[in-house]
């Protein structure tokens, strides 16, 4: 029983980070109607930005995270403005090719800049743990989870309560009508892509203490992001939270009770099951 709780807790903590990745992908899909194939690479950019600030420039770890988010956001805005905005009215395959291309170029730039050797981050809390009764918590994952809750809560508040959030939701639901209300949907698109990149970069920074960073791991996380968004329903932010948690727990249980080398496969199996049984996603509702 203790072991089971332990595994679920680990799954929930990792799932929170997956939710962050999925929310970004979901927001981008909702507003821009593009599937961002570079999403996992954005996460890897976050990992290497973190490594760069922490290992090379020796920036305090608590300062690194806001910096990584800022870098991600700016990169996202610039990429959207110069590479995606020009093809906004082009057929769908144009945006697929463009985001695949962005991912390829970014991961190869990382390879060029940081080399082929897997890298890890060494912080005091990378390996430290704390205990609650018989359950052990990784300090790094706990920090990640707390930040996840804060970030998702903040984002939900922005989306629900502010003009910016209403503009984002309006642009997602009906772009022409949003323009007719005076909403600059071009700016909303740039911002949303920036937010998506920033969230992925944050997820990269949060996952870094448990993983080896390598420029080629992007596609694995793109896939995870797809699983999370499809589980939750495309374009559905609240659903992405549920999808992230479900993926985290599924992976964690599968890895513990079946085989840890098939960790990634359990998420995909859950994904197929959901697609078969509920094509609109677990929390999806049919669009009208």
């Amino acid at each position, binding site marked *: 029983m203790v072991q089971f709780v332990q595994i679920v807790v680990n799954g929930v903590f990792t799932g929170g980070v997956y939710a962050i990745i999925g929310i970004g992908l979901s927001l981008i899909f909702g507003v821009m109607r593009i599937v961002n194939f570079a999403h996992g690479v954005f996460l890897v950019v976050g990992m290497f930005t973190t490594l760069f600030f922490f290992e090379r420039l020796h920036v305090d770890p608590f300062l690194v995270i806001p910096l990584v988010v800022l870098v991600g956001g700016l990169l996202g805005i610039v990429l959207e403005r110069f590479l995606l905005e020009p093809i906004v009215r082009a057929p769908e395959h144009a945006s697929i090719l463009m985001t695949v291309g962005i991912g390829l170029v970014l991961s190869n730039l990382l390879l060029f800049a940081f080399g082929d050797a897997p890298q890890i981050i060494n912080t005091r809390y990378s390996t430290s743990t704390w205990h609650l009764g018989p359950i052990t918590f990784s300090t790094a994952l706990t920090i990640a989870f707390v930040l996840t809750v804060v970030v998702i809560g903040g984002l939900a508040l922005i989306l629900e309560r502010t*003009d910016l959030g*209403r*503009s984002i*939701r*309006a642009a997602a*639901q*009906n772009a*022409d*009508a*949003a*323009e*007719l*209300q*005076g*909403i*600059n*949907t*071009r700016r909303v698109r740039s911002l949303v892509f920036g937010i998506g990149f920033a969230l992925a970069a944050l997820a990269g920074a949060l996952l870094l203490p448990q993983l080896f960073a390598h420029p080629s791991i992007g596609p694995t996380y793109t896939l995870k992001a797809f699983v999370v968004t499809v589980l939750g329903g495309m374009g559905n932010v609240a659903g992405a939270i549920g999808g992230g948690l479900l993926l985290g727990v599924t992976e964690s249980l599968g890895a513990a009770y079946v085989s840890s080398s098939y960790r990634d496969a359990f998420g995909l199996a859950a994904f197929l099951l959901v697609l078969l049984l509920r094509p609109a996603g677990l929390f999806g509702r049919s669009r*009208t």
Partner: protein
Amino acid sequence: MRDPGFTLTLRHLQAGYGDVQVLWDVSLEVRPGELVALIGANGAGKTTTLRAVASLLRARDGEVQFGTNRLDRMSAHDIVNLGVAMVPEGRQLFNQMTVEENLLTGSSLSRTRPLRRSNLDRVYALFPLLRERRLQEASTLSGGEQQMLAIGRGLMSAPRLLMLDEPSLGLAPTIVEEVFGVVQDIRREGITVLLVEQNVQQALRIADRAYVLESGRIVLAGPGLELLQSAEVRRAYLGI
């Protein structure tokens, strides 16, 4: 309330979609305080005219001017900030937002943000039902209520000129009466109105002036009541 400077002028406007040209040569004028109707058969180019004015569609040739501003060179959201709002055909509400959220999206502009509270009160005074339903999702409203919400949302940007595209389409006869009443209320508040309608008789009755659009060209123009009496309009649009 009436600002003599803000006349909407269309000069030799041409517009279309892809290979299809819809508007061939549309010239018309809407002066401040006027209620002008634009009538014509389905596919004549009424909606296209409004979309071109709102910059949802780029004009191929010709000019759209509002006061001293050339609208055909501006983006749609900047035109709203100038005081030209459009209530699109089929309402186009943000269905998964509440009534009040729909209204608030119409007032996030720098010009209208400070007036948000009073504009909201004004819209609720015009449509008391929307106040009762303010926390309901827009998709749960009836057709007539949705049309009221669409008009209310258009008013939230405190427009000088409001363009209404087929506001009575698909509504029950009693609601149609109500919509035409609201259009007159809006005009009485000093807001200029450009009304596109299939309900030709009603539209001509309340319009100061009207234009008749046929295959992308203006073929008739004159005071509403005069057109209502004209043999051509009666034959082509009223079936009498």
